[in-house]
Each structure stands twice: as structure tokens, then as C-alpha cells.
């Protein structure tokens, strides 16, 4: 039983890391219908910026706070200059464009930070383990679950309970009508894109103490994040959240109880889900 609970906690941790990347990916798709292959690059960028901030200031908290900033800025510029002209041109062109950016980002990161692996240490307060009954959990992992849940809550509140959120929802549902109602859709799109990649950058910085900081982490997070988004339902925040938890748990429990099949499990699950619920598992069916 202890073993199962431990593995469920582990599954939640990996689910939260996934959520931090998938949330933005899903929103960007939902609002702009853009497939952002470069999303993982912002995850990587956030980890590296966080690393530098921590080396410079010595503060993990400063690193978390500042890590999303360059991504926000770059994201806004990227959306304005490159992605906007492509909205009408379909997914293929977006894929090629953002795929091009993954190359540029990786090379820029190598140039700035070198190609070695670095690690980020956690602040003393989060160092060490907690014993809950017979279960051993590193404190930082509990913190990570907390960050994921907090972010989910904040995003949910913003989208469901604020005026800004209402505008985003209106634009997701029907952009032309939203525009007609006086919503500045282009501005909204830039903001959501920047915020989405900013969250991914935050995800990179938060995940760094566990998975390290290295070039290649961009691609490693990208495919699982896409799986989450399609399983959960593209464009839906709650879909991204439950999709992340679902994939995190399925992957972790699969590795633990079916180690021989763990490589196959997530993909089989994805095929089954897409065939039975192509819109995603966690999306309320709309008429």
C-alpha cells in the first residue's frame, strides 16, 4: 500500500511538470489554433535563465520569479513578427516555422550556456525528505505538486472568473464575433501566447532541480506535453490539467507495475483515447 501511494505521488509530480508545459500549449492551440512545436524550447529557456539567476543572486526564489521574463518577451515578439502572418496558413506552415525556432533556440542556448549539463540546488527550506507514515517523499516534490495545483487554480480563476478570462473564452469560441463585440483579439492573442510560453519557462525552472538543466530537455518534454494536450482535449485548461495527471499517473504506474510494457503504454492509451474520444477525454461535449 505504501508503495502504491508513493508511486501515485510520483505520478502526480510528473503530471505537474507536464501540466506546466501543457497548459500554455493547449491555450495557445485553443485561442490561436497554432501548433507551437517550439513550446519545449521555452521550457528549456526558463530552466537556463533560472540557473543563471540563481548563480548570480544565489536565490532560488529569484530564479523562479525571473525565469519566465525572457520567455514572455521573446514569446510576444515571436507571435507578433512570425506567427501572426501565419494564422490563415494552416498547421503545416506553423509546424515548419516553430520547428525552425527549436533549432535556433537550441543553438542559441548552447552558445550562451555551453552544452554541458548543470544542476540547480533547492533552497534549504525545501531540502530533505518528509516521512508521512511509512512513505518517504522529498520535500521539493511536495512543493512541486503544490506549485502545479496553485497554478492550475490561478489559471482557472483567471479564465473562469475574470473579465479577461471571459474575453479569452469568447475568443476561443468564436473569434470574429468576439472581435465584433469590441474585444481586441490580436492583443489577446499576443498576451496568451506570451503567457503560455512564460508558464512553460516557469515549468522549466521549477523542474530543473529534479531533471537538471541541459540542451535536449526541450524535445524531451515536447512529445509528452503534446500527448497530454490531445488526450485532455486541445484548447481546454481543465483538459490539460486532468490530461497531465492522467498521463503522469498512467506512465508512472505503468513503469512500476508493467515495466516491460512501459514504453508502449502511453502510446497505446493515446491511440485508444483518440479513437474513442477524438476531442479529448476531459472536454465536455459541446453541441
Amino acid at each position, binding site marked *: 500500500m505504501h508503495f502504491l501511494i508513493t508511486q501515485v505521488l510520483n505520478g502526480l509530480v510528473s503530471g505537474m511538470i507536464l501540466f506546466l508545459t501543457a497548459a500554455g500549449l493547449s491555450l495557445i492551440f485553443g485561442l490561436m489554433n497554432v*501548433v507551437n512545436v517550439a513550446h519545449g524550447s521555452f521550457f528549456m529557456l526558463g530552466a537556463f535563465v533560472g540557473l543563471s539567476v540563481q548563480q548570480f543572486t544565489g536565490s532560488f526564489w529569484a530564479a523562479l520569479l525571473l525565469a519566465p521574463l525572457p520567455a514572455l518577451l521573446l514569446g510576444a515578439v515571436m507571435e507578433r513578427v512570425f506567427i501572426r502572418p501565419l494564422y490563415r496558413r494552416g498547421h503545416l506552415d506553423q509546424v*515548419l516555422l516553430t520547428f*525552425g525556432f527549436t533549432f*535556433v533556440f537550441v*543553438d542559441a542556448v548552447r552558445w550562451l550556456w555551453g552544452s554541458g549539463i548543470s544542476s540547480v540546488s533547492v533552497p534549504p527550506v525545501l531540502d530533505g525528505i518528509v516521512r508521512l507514515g511509512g512513505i518517504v517523499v522529498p520535500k521539493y516534490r511536495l512543493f512541486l505538486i503544490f506549485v502545479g495545483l496553485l497554478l492550475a487554480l490561478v489559471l482557472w480563476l483567471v479564465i473562469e472568473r475574470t473579465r479577461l478570462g471571459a474575453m479569452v473564452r469568447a475568443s476561443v469560441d468564436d473569434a470574429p464575433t468576439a472581435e465584433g463585440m469590441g474585444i481586441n483579439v490580436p492583443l489577446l492573442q499576443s498576451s496568451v501566447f506570451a503567457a503560455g510560453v512564460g508558464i512553460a519557462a516557469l515549468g522549466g525552472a521549477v523542474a530543473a532541480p529534479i531533471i537538471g538543466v541541459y540542451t535536449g530537455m526541450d524535445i524531451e518534454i515536447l512529445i509528452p506535453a503534446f*500527448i497530454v494536450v*490531445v488526450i485532455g482535449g486541445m484548447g481546454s485548461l481543465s483538459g490539460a490539467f486532468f490530461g497531465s495527471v492522467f498521463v503522469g499517473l498512467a506512465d508512472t504506474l505503468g513503469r512500476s507495475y508493467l515495466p516491460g510494457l512501459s514504453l508502449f503504454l502511453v502510446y*497505446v492509451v493515446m491511440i485508444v483515447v483518440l*479513437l474513442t474520444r477524438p476531442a479529448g477525454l476531459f472536454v465536455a461535449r459541446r453541441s
Partner: protein
Amino acid sequence: MTRFAPLAAAALLALAPAVLGNYGIGLLTECLIFAIFAMSLDLLIGYTGLLSFGHAAFFGLSAYAVVTLNVHLGVNGWLGLGAGIVLSTMFAVLVGAVSIRVSGIAFLMVTLAFAQLVFSAALKWRDVTGGTDGLGGLVRPRLFGSSLDNRVTMFYLAFACLVASVWALRRLVAAPLGSVFIGIKENAARMHALGYKVQRFRLLSFTIAGAFAGLAGGLYGLFNGYISTDALNWSVSGDVVIMVILGGAGTIVGPAIGAAIFLVMKDVVSSWTDHWMFLIGAVFIACVMVLPQGVWGAVLQVTGRRR
């Protein structure tokens, strides 16, 4: 005049070994093989409107068939090539039958998932595939008395296959069947209303694409004499999508040109500079922004020809 352009291009290509060194011939051969691979995917992307992101599976399966059958069982490379194409075609029927039930991004992800399953199987089945270390030691077969070990012979084999593929795909696209594919791409609902069994045609297109990818993969196995799981990696599926868009989706020759540009950039530019990734990325970005129809699409536009 323009009628003869393809013939002139083919003739020029056929003469290339006379001026190129051994290394250049090898590089060109690789370009020709990937040209077939990219053209096969374009049948899906450019003509039927199916964005497949798992095309490496059909390429890799066939390449594995050629190498493993020869190395483990001593099967002649030609038989292996035939077996590889059959295997890829059959697998395409299976994957196609399942994945055409969904469309758009879901289709992309389902095809990716199938390819990843094949990749994982190759990774796990080490006794046969050699896993990440791969499998080498292929004994190449002979063609008209000359071994495929000879770079020039290998080149002409790939060249002949490319010419045959271009011819076959041109015929296909020009035939009524091609019009049905394009009709499905433009407006599937309309085709359905006209009484076409849309799903059957989609499956047919997927199967044909799988067969040509199998041809390319089998040639690659013969050419390389070695195969590893890297050939099944999702990044190969990504690469070939890029080749198609770069050259121009929805044209026959475009993807072939895209393949050549892509490979030359990857192989040659990476020898010049450590920052080849930056350059490649910048070229992709520039292409999307400036040449929305792809390189060949732009050429066609300038010369005023339709595809």
C-alpha cells in the same frame, strides 16, 4: 520547351556520377532515396490532406527488413527489398485503417503513436534489431553483374527507382484517382455527398504512400548496409515532413527538391560550422515567411506554371 525540362533534369542527374567523386555520389544517392520518401509523404500531405507524423515507421520497417533478413537469415537483398515493401504496405493498411477514423491533429498524433510503438519494439527486440547499437554486416546483392557495393551502381538503382516513382506518382495524380484524393483534401464532405467512399480513398492513399516509403526505406537499407533505431526515431518523421513543406507540398517534384536541400544543409553545412543548427533553423523560418508555397512552389509561381 517546359515539356522537356523534366527530361533534361533527369539526363543531367544521370550524368552526375561522371563528374562527382565517390563521396558526392554517395550523398546524391542518399538525396534520391529521401526524395522518394518525401514524395510518398506528399501524397498524404499535399494531395489527400492527411498530416501524418509517423511516416518513419514505414521507411524504417522496410530498412530493417532488408538488413535483418540478410544478416540473420542470409536472405538476398532483393528479396529483402521486396519483403520490406510488402511489410510496409501491410503495416500501412493497418495503421491507415485505424488512424483515418480521426482527422487533423488527432490524426497526426495517432500516426505518431504508431510510429513510436514500432520504434519502441525495435528498441526492445534487441536480439533481432541490435537495439540502439543497430545491426550491420549486410552483404549487398548484385545488379546486372555489378555489386551494389559499387557506389555508381547503387546510384543508378536509386536513380531508376526515383524516376519510376516520379512517373508513377504523376500518372496517379493525373488519373481520376488523383482527382478524388485532391477532392478529399479540398472538401471531404462534398466528395462524400457526391457518393465517393471517402474513407476508402483515404486508406488507399495511405497504403500507396506506405508502399513508396517502404521502397525508399529498403533502398536506404541496401545503401547504408546498417540500420539502427535512429532510423525509426520520431525526428525522422519530422525531417520528412519538413522536406515536403520546404520543397512545396502538393507538387510532385517539390518534396524531392526539399529532401535534397534538407540533406545537403544537414550534411554539408554541419561540416562548415558548429552553428549549423542556427542556420538550418533560420532557413526554415525564412522559407515559411518568404516562400509560402515552398521552394518548388515558388519556382512554379514565377515561371507561371501550374502544378
